[in-house]
């Protein structure tokens, strides 16, 4: 069969009711022709997106710029090396060495607990996870912990650590009443704030390890436990570090737990006996800022701004660290 297309007449269209190609599709009730391009609604949406984006930029610049300006204005180096003094005059009320150290101690206790527990839970969830129902429950449990307000965690902690058998963690008064407030008690509740972040980041890191890596380890005759210890955990190190750093950021920034569980004194006040510092009370940068703001007792805005600036710098550093860890240490599997 041979057809010369140049001379052949156009054949009938298979379906005459169908619109010709390229003709706008006609839909009843839409004014005939389909429009393309940008409708009014689209333009409004686009304008709204630009508006929100630009105001976000303005707000971000305003907040960061304002805090930097106030920080440079009010921060003096001696503030970092002197303890707070009880004084109504801002020039003699001392610095915030104690809160700075308090933030450090609390952060270390918090991640010190959160890392081993969080990594353990994450490993169990990704590598074992049996029975499945329990794993599901644990997962939602972690989610609930992540969603619980820190003020609730704080007063729950107070409830627990005021039980008489918890006396070793804080200070026991003469009548046998347990004070329940100390770096240890606050730190262990802080661990709960960091825990979901550590678990989440570790799980993500473990999930991203391809199966062939595990299989290679099994093929070498290693059992699961040593595979986890020698192969998986080293590979997940950067994920764990990311989670821990995020957790440190949250711990540094929390105020409610400090206010409830670390006592009201601005100075670090160690208890007597073994581990007195950890069983004693103190303050952190957040509680220092709060107490020196007009809502607290001190009302020393200059000190508050300076401490807030230092706090912001710590958070900035931690943020920077997260970015660096994520970029540098990610194992390349492919």
């Amino acid at each position: 069969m041979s057809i010369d297309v140049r001379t052949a007449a156009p054949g009938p269209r298979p379906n005459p009711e169908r619109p010709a190609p390229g003709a706008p599709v006609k839909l009843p009730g839409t004014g005939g022709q389909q429009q393309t391009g940008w409708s009014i609604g689209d333009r409004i949406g686009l304008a709204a997106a630009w508006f929100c984006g630009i105001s976000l930029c303005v707000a971000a610049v305003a907040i960061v710029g304002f805090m930097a300006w106030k920080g440079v204005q009010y921060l003096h180096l001696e503030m970092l090396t002197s303890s707070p003094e009880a004084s109504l005059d801002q020039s003699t009320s001392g610095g915030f060495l104690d809160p700075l150290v308090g933030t450090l101690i609390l952060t270390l206790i918090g991640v010190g607990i959160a890392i081993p527990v969080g990594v353990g839970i994450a490993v169990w969830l990704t590598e074992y996870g049996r029975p499945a129902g329990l794993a599901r429950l644990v997962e939602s449990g972690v989610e609930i912990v992540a969603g619980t307000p820190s003020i609730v965690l704080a007063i729950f902690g107070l409830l627990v650590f005021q039980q008489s058998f918890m006396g070793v963690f804080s200070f026991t008064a003469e009548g046998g009443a347990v004070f329940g407030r100390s770096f240890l008690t606050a730190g262990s509740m802080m661990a709960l704030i960091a825990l979901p972040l550590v678990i989440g980041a570790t799980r993500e890191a473990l999930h991203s390890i391809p199966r062939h890596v595990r299989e290679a380890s099994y093929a070498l005759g290693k059992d699961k436990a040593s595979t986890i210890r020698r192969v998986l955990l080293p590979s997940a190190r950067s994920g764990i570090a990311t989670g821990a750093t995020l957790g440190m950021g949250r711990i540094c920034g929390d105020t409610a737990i400090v206010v409830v569980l670390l006592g009201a004194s601005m100075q670090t006040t160690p208890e007597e006996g073994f581990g007195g510092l950890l069983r004693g009370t103190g303050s952190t940068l957040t509680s220092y800022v709060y107490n020196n703001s007009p809502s607290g007792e001190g009302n020393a805005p200059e000190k508050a701004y300076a401490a807030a600036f230092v706090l912001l710098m710590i958070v900035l550093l931690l943020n920077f660290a997260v970015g660096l860890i994520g970029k540098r240490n990610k194992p390349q599997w492919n």
Partner: protein
Amino acid sequence: MEAASLNNVEVQAPDLDIDRTDRRVELLLGALASTILLLIAGMILFVLIKALPSFTHNGLAWFGAGGSVDDQLMDIFNSPADPADYVYHLRAWPLLYATVLITGVAVVISVVFSVLSAIFIVEFAPDRLRRIIEPVVKLLAAVPSVIYGLIGILVVVPFVAHHLISEDRKESVAYVIQLDGTSILVGIFILTVMICPIMIAIIVDALRSVPDKWVEGAAALGVNRWRAMRTVSLRAIRPAIVAALVLATARALGEAIMLSMVAGSVGFAPNPMDGFTFFLEPARPLASTIVDNAEGLSVVPFGQTMYAFAAILLISSAFLSFAGWAARKSFSRYTLGAR
């Protein structure tokens, strides 16, 4: 033939000896993971038991309105020492109302703002701006709330007090409440500023993970960039938006310090009939009430009342996680994990 030979393969029972260390590790880790369940159960149980007297003495009226909540709290704090004479009378409505109002308005504004900003950052922002704004948003998401509170009380509150509150306005409500700038307006504003970066960071990450092929597919059908964003990308990341929403709501619900600084810390229920003045009236949500009164927790009936507030927060945040989970599940029906 092959099938038959397959049937003849003897399946050996696994050698349990080799697995013993493994088994121990599994049990150990499993036990560790289960402690978190114990912890949650303990938390809910402890807090509820501690909170029970406050609820049983007031019944459902606990949630209702009536009288000044601050006076009632003062009476509870000053209860006689004899347990039989403990005062529990409380009508917590103003605190509940403040919690729902401030959280709700801030979250609604934030969702809209965050989604639009995230679209701007991912799709429309010039490259140079995007490179700067993204890390800044991540930083803002990590800024401690007390810093926002500090800026609020030292900058925004005085601004509101000087520019939005006239003498007339003060007098119009002077018989019920004093206006000094600390108000739900500032509370909502600062809370919005605080939770937006958290949501934006999550939504931007999610939008980035939307496969290019979907956006290209929409573009190839003659759909403009905005529509493609709205109808394909946003639809695909609805689970992430819900996750961001849940996280931000949990943060807003539990925000204690910042709101106690800028929202007035008065157990007052702002009256919507006051017109714009409504927004300038102070209030105090549950979480702030607890943190403001942390010193009084050792007074038994007062402590129990505070734990009742904590119980409400705990239950609502647990409910929030559950609602978020259910919503994510229903939204991911069409996604089928294809990301």
